[in-house]
């Protein structure tokens, strides 16, 4: 009998563990929000976070978007040719990049680049007692380390998504006009006419949510890090895994919500 119940026990323990983890992350996110809106504000740390998350992510975001946009144009052209619909390349590239691929790819790139960096930095600070030192210097680690990073990501990742969308559409344009024989003026006109304001706003909203997820996961795993190099490694790996999965899950939920509006 006990052998039969053992799997249920494992399932129950794992479910409880998962619920507890969700609870801890939720509380952490709420604490972060409360620190964002209450003084003191650390403007230098906020400025550094803006640079690290925004400006320094531009190359990787741009390269990801331009290659994805180009590949998307080739795929749509090849796929569309099967039923004589090659002409829809500008429209599908635009909607594909703006509504879906732009925000998701930027989110995943931010998870890879920024989440890992935040988690490793904060975890190392914890391991080397720098976070304890902050406390003894009358500085709240949530205010000094977490709030500026999360606020910066909430503000700057939508901007990165917007830039990624534009560069992605440009990638499709370059391939379509350079190798597939599309007329440049017609391509731009079709793209602009097809896109709606709601497409752009939904893209930016996704960017804001994904930025919040990526930065919060980096900070959470960094602050919860275990001891030593292994602790830092685990925190970094865990933060990227959690951020990537949550971004994809949030994208699914948000897409559903936006379609229902």
């Amino acid at each position, binding site marked *: 009998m006990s052998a039969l119940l053992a799997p249920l026990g494992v399932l129950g323990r794992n479910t409880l563990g998962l619920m507890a983890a969700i609870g801890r992350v939720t509380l952490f996110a709420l604490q972060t929000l409360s620190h964002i809106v209450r003084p*003191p504000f*650390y403007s230098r740390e906020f400025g*550094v976070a803006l640079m690290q998350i925004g400006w320094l992510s531009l190359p990787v975001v741009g390269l990801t978007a331009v290659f994805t946009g180009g590949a998307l144009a080739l795929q749509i052209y090849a796929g569309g040719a099967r039923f004589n619909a090659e002409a829809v390349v500008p429209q599908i590239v635009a909607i594909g990049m703006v509504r879906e691929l732009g925000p998701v790819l930027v989110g995943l790139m931010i998870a890879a680049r920024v989440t890992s960096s935040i988690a490793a930095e904060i975890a190392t*600070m914890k391991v*080397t*007692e*720098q976070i*304890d*030192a902050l*406390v*003894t*210097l*009358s*500085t709240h680690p949530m205010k000094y380390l977490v709030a500026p990073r999360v606020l910066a990501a909430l503000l700057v990742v939508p901007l990165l998504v917007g830039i990624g969308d534009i560069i992605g559409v440009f990638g499709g344009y370059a391939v379509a006009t350079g190798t597939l024989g599309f007329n440049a003026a017609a391509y731009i006109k079709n793209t602009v006419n097809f896109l709606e304001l709601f497409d752009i706003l939904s893209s930016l909203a996704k960017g804001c949510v994904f930025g919040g997820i990526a930065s919060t996961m980096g900070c959470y795993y960094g602050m919860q890090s275990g001891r030593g190099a292994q602790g830092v490694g685990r925190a970094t790996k865990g933060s990227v895994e959690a951020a990537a999965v949550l971004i994809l899950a949030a994208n699914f939920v948000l897409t559903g919500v936006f379609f229902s509006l």
Partner: protein
Amino acid sequence: MIELSNVKKSFGSNHVLQGVDLTIDRGTSMVIIGGSGTGKSVLLKSVLGLVVHDSGTITLDGQDVTKADRDTFLARFGMLFQGGALFDSLPVWQNVAFRLLRGSLKRPKDEAREIAIEKLRRVGLKPDVADRLPAELSGGMQKRVGLARAIAAEPEIIFFDEPTTGLDPIMSSVINDLIREIVDEMGATAMTITHDMSSVRAIADNVAMLHGGVIKWTGAVGDMDHSGDPYVDQFISGRADGPIEAVR
């Protein structure tokens, strides 16, 4: 005066502090000795609230530290961490002046830098160190910067966590002498944890021996060699045989 009464702290089944009673008088230097893993750091962090003790009371001038206003309470403390715990991303002078650049003790930037350079000079470092990053300094220099940061806001109470760990004997001696001089000069209350006996003799007014989660012996540093306590005797002589098990 810092007073600990029946302080207990466990991590799971590991009962680190099992009822610590200790009094540190104002303006005196207390050194807590004990082997590695006996809970010295946990004790020190419990006083600062970095570790929350399970039971017992810790008071500062009669007020329970868990009920004190955190900012006001912490503003009275300075701390030198074992590894320095300097902020990698900030230059040395901003590490030293960290408290003076933000919060209730905030000063204009130029004034904070001047104070930082003066404190660096006090711990034997030249002003040209001020603009370097912590990673560019040797271990001994990092300890000195950590010491300068601990004293920058002229706290009433200074904690030293293993101040000579990882330093050569000469640098250890320099740091010990600096700590003693600074504590005397500032009239501060000091609490140091160490297992380096040269530090104990250089820094302490009083010594407490922590073993098995309790204070086994406490007294003046001059009485330490004739304490009659088998734990203290074994520890200061460094013998493998005695009541303290060599393998923990």
